[in-house]
């Protein structure tokens, strides 16, 4: 599996696999709140804690495009034990919504890889 992106992991965690979703607005979160966010690897731009609040406990992993482990979203991911990569930088294009990905926080950095679905 090729690495798609890497960033700072919030804590050590074994690799997890899920379905990539770029979440951009509260409506995206509300839609998942009303159905389910289980199995989702959520990609978000900003490092605030509140955007994902009602679905955080269902997420498989979080990939944030900014921030550090001490940013609010990093703190919350640590408490939920949801693997999280901060300030993720992509080597090329981001995955499309619905793509299968792996988030690996077992090494020095947090890594996002394409996974076979």
């Amino acid at each position, binding site marked *: 599996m090729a690495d798609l992106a890497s960033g700072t992991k919030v*804590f050590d965690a074994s690799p997890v696999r899920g379905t990539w979703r770029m979440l951009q607005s509260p*409506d995206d979160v509300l839609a998942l*709140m009303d159905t389910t966010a289980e199995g989702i690897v959520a990609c978000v731009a900003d490092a605030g804690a509140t955007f994902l609040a009602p679905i*955080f406990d269902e997420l498989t992993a979080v990939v944030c495009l900014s921030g550090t482990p*001490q940013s609010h979203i990093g703190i919350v991911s*640590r408490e939920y034990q949801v693997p999280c990569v901060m300030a993720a930088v992509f080597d090329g294009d981001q995955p499309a919504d619905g793509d299968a990905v792996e988030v690996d926080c077992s090494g020095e950095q947090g890594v996002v890889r394409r996974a076979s679905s």
Partner: protein
Amino acid sequence: MSLTDWPKERVNQEIRYHSGIALALTEQRTALESALIPVSAYILVACVECYRRYPEMIEEIAAAAAPEELGRAGHRFATQIDNVHLWALPNFAMIGRKVLATAGLVDWDEDRRRMAIVFDFWDRAARAYRFDDGTRQAWDAGGVATPYRAQVPWLVEHLRPVDGERLGRVTRLNALLTSYLFLLWFDTRSGYQDTGPYQLDDGRVLLLRAFNGLGPTHFPWSGAVASELPFRDVIGAFVLDGVDLRVTDFGTSVTTPADYLSHVEEFSLFDVGRGAPQPIDDDGLDALAAAAKAAQRRLYRTIAGMDRRAKIDAGAYVYFTFLRPFAELAGADLDWTVPRDSLDLYPLLELVDGALPGPAVAETADTYYSAIP
């Protein structure tokens, strides 16, 4: 008790002290933006209000109670006199000052007088909060803040072991309360506050995590969503083995290893909102977690339904009222209306989305908060 008027050099000395620490903390934390809440915009509105109003409000508070007395009140649970509420007093005013200085709106002689009031109050309260040990913040002590040290022996007697099944229950509750309070407090970490490390005789360390204001409070949005929370203020006590624990002046724990939860050996949650601490049994933990989860979902819908202006006003209120616990303890009746004194800049401030305004070049410890010329 009156507050001292400081000469310019002393004010500048204090500005330099805070500037370096604030820069380092901000670099660790980075931006605070959220796709739900326009955090940067509301911070600017609130901090301009803080610079323009805190000195007079602080004088009223200090006239009603000595800063030292208010600082020592933070040794009791549920007062919200804590790391971040103390840190905020000078720093919020200085962030507002930074914004106003960028726009050429600071009168420097008046600035010296105003900042002296804020610094003097903060210095005296902070020293008392830290037991007059010569430090003023966790930063000065290498990440140590132990305001509840007198209560630790009693708390330790009421801790319970954490096995695999109970760890899952504790982890879920802790995460839900943390996440819920971030939302209730509009993406600030002031609703929950970590203190420690409290060194135990057997070599392990105790982390105390305060979850404050879980139910209806003075936040207008709390009444409709939080009325079913069974507790108002609780303290979580975590005994950690093999963990290096430090806390920041934002009230956040920094641990090595980062995943401290797998090192929790004992835990209890205490109700501290009704006088003496009372241990909460595991059924109570589950009930609290369920109520927090439900309240969080209601609150998210409420906030998502607010327009941008309403979100900025609400967030600015949260930030501006960081002074409120001091006023309430002192018995000072103050005007908490916000926005009030930022309306001239509001059309500009509300457009900010992302990084706070500052110079185009990289900030340094000397420039993050600029000295009085």
